[in-house]
């Protein structure tokens, strides 16, 4: 896109401004809730056995490397978001397709998370409630936060982040009564090669840091984006690894892969006498609020990409239709088994193609076509 066309572009949606602390809270909560709370830990136990806790660190390191390319791309086009950059570097048509792929991923991701949450909630808390009843409550919250906007979501996550962190750490400490060191063995799991392989491919869990590229204009410059991205990946890596370490210590690896939600189960096993037991229901608060934040953010990002692709200036009317689409996608899997085998593992395993490969192609195209941004305040 030449400079003339760039100048003619309509002003895009106003998403507000927020600081690094808010952004770090948003991204970290999104990654941790996806990587820890649901079936993800048992899936990891299934593929790498006892090596989950350090396999996830390999994933985090891979994601940090992938994010470097995203950062380099953003650095080349200061003040632009990834949808605009795709268009500038690859042209309107190809850029549109790339943005469309990103949109599809961000629409599929909250839908699977919503269904996963619903199914796990059904298993542990509301066995008799229909999924649509559980989803209904959830979607009301998601729609409202979507309409209130990104700035509000960022502020809310900053508000609850310390509480969630304290509760999360307290949960892990309280669960230590069931830890047995011998359960860490065999320390190499199913073999180092397998661990590294899965560590590299499942890095997409941390790929949600790419959200920063979509909301780049709401953050305070590329330097901040770099800081936010790396801190979020490192913080979530530590938290996910700590949780994986804790459940490896709690459950033998052959049992861990059978448990629907190992972390929830860990909290249910806490027992310090008659008045201090069964913390699972209390843990439900942090589980639920984190998931609400993650799904709201991902849905908002999908709507935001859509608005940016089609030059729509007001995101609010898009939120409700997108929520309905999300609900519809979430209802597609026939049962929990289909959901886990067909959908839930799709993004952790193949998401990296969209999260990192597309920005790398755009970066190469920008280098080859000598495309560059107009300066820090362009």
């Amino acid at each position, binding site marked *: 896109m030449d400079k003339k066309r760039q100048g003619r572009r309509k002003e895009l949606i106003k998403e507000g401004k927020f600081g690094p602390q808010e952004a770090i809270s948003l991204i970290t909560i999104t990654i941790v809730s996806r990587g820890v709370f649901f079936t993800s830990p048992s899936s990891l136990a299934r593929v790498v056995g006892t090596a989950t806790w350090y396999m996830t660190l390999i994933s985090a390191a891979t994601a940090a490397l992938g994010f470097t390319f995203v950062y380099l791309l953003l650095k080349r086009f200061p003040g632009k978001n990834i949808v605009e950059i795709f268009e500038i570097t690859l042209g309107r048509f190809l850029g549109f397709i790339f943005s469309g792929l990103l949109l599809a991923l961000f629409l599929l991701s909250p839908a699977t998370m919503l269904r996963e949450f619903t199914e796990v909630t059904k298993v542990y808390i509301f066995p008799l409630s229909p999924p649509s009843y559980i989803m209904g409550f959830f979607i009301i*919250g998601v729609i409202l936060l979507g309409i209130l906007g990104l700035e509000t*979501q960022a502020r809310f996550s900053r508000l609850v982040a310390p509480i969630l962190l304290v509760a999360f750490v307290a949960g892990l400490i309280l669960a230590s009564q069931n830890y047995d060191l011998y359960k860490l063995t065999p320390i190499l799991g199913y073999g180092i090669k397998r661990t590294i392989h899965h560590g590299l491919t499942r890095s997409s869990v941390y790929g949600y840091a790419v959200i920063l590229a979509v909301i780049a204009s709401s953050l305070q410059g590329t330097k901040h984006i770099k800081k936010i991205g790396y801190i979020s990946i490192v913080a979530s890596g530590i938290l996910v690894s700590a949780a994986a370490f804790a459940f490896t210590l709690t459950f033998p690896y052959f049992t861990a892969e059978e448990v629907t939600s190992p972390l929830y189960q860990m909290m249910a096993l806490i027992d310090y006498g008659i008045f201090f037991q069964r913390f699972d229901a209390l843990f*439900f608060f942090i589980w639920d609020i984190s998931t609400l934040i993650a799904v709201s953010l991902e849905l908002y990002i999908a709507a935001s990409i859509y608005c940016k692709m089609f030059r729509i200036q007001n995101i609010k009317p898009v939120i409700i239709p997108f929520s309905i689409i999300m609900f519809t996608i979430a209802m597609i899997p026939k049962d929990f088994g289909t959901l886990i085998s067909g959908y839930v593992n799709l993004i952790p395993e193949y998401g990296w193609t969209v999260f990192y490969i597309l920005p790398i192609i755009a970066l190469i195209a920008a280098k080859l076509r000598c495309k560059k941004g107009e300066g820090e305040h362009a």
Partner: protein
Amino acid sequence: MAEFLSYIKKFITYKEPKDIDDFELLESEHEGTDQDGLDEEFQKEQDKKSNQDKDKDDKNQKKKKPLKVDEWNKTKNKSGDKSPQSSENMVDPQLKINLERIQKAFISDKNSDIIIRQFKIAQKIDAFIVFIDGMVDRETINNYILRQLMKPELLENYKGDRLVEFIENNVLSVHDTKKETKYDMIIGQICNGLTVLFIDGCSECLMFETRGYEKRGVEKPATEAVIGGPQEGFNENLRTNITLIRRIVKNHHLVTEILPLGKTNHSFCAVMYVDGISNPKVIKEVKRRINSHDTDYIQSGGVLEHLIEDSPLMLFPQVMRTERPDRASSFLMEGKVVIVTDGAPFIIAVPATFFSMLQTTEESNLKWQQGTLLKLIRLLGLFAALLLPGLYIALLLYHQEVVPSDLLSSIAMSRESVPFPILVEVILMEVSFELIREAGIRVAGITGTTLGMIGGLILGQAAVTAGIVSPILIIVVAVTGLGNFAIPNYSLALSIRISRFLFIVLGALAGFYGISVGIFVLGGLVCSMKSFGVPFLSPIAPKTKGNSGLALVMPAFSQKERPDYLNTLDRKKTGENPRGWIKRDKGGEKN
């Protein structure tokens, strides 16, 4: 109701958004640097904006169709009637015309309060004074106005020009006088208790400060009691309230701007701020909101609050109200803007944040550890007031596994004879408690307190004996009520009371899941709120520098800066070493 329906309609239907610039108090480029000249720059910016608006208006006017002659005349006459500069609105040199206008304006043939006293100045020049009976101090009028003006030798040194000025400077011994020519101002001031003198042949009149109506004295604050602090509260008089603040803030930069309130009521409010500390953008925004309202009558500060707050549909208050002059003074010194309304024993302080509503002056008068304890108890009270009944329902309906079996069996036994479902039981008790509280407030004095206590005790006991509610629910409702009383801001406490019912319903519908969705929704709504451009949950969300905010009370010597979110012109509250008696070397070590 209609407004609510239109809001729902707006929510469902789509309209192309208007390009409205919401007021936001963003950090300026001068953040942390010398702030001199910010005012001028801001003024220039505003001028530029208003010029742009003017240009826009001009363009719009150009597009308008030309008016027919008749229409033009009508428009001209209409606007002529209202214009403040029209001859109708100006004092006439002929006394008779002025007299007729005043009589007409105050409907003096029916209105027995209005006193128009005609007399001759020095037995020569016709004049009259006008005032409202009961609003003025009669002694001032009789002894220092009428007596002086009627002296025969009064005009001995008068040289024949500018009679009003001569009388003002040489005759009247009243401390505050003002010349005025516009009727709308004159009428407004008469309504406020001033006396106005009209003189034949003069095209201006003289207004005297003669206010002398009955008012309540300075008493103890009724709703913000503290143990270790000043014990005086505001009353309903604007001047007294301003004085109470000025008596504490003895700063020559403290500015009081009087602004009119109400189109037909002629009441006033005072906007107070410390020049050089408060952000000029906030001051300008406060004045803009007050000046731009279009209402006949503003009953009190509460009504003004409706008119000036950012999001009137939100449940939570977005301005801070206090009846304590010491609190108002600390707001001023923090950099906030204070609005004092005539007729209200509360002042309004803006911008307000959620955490400032949980503070009282008690903390600053105590040691910081004690203050922190009080603040933590208050937070606990807030939590109990908001969530306790909802959690109780959720626990008993969905999460019995969390309750220890002994406790669960005792609860089950106590509920054995209760015929209602738990939701009905809780709502029944909550509504009864709200009734007792409301009745206790409405019945004056000691009877109200007794009614509250007796009502609570007897009703609770009777309800348990009759088997309508379980004893444990009485404890839950009582703790909830106590928690609500611990919230220092009445308006916030009321919002929490309303929200509690939402959590009761959510707890009954979906247990902890429903409550967590409720927390998410309510938290989101609160996070989206702003008070005069400042996010409501500052300094936590968004995180800003300084001030512990949530739970900790820091000792006075470590509170070196004013709240960052207020973007004050002068950031520092103290010097580098507030406890100057402890000498420090360069490394900061104590000597």
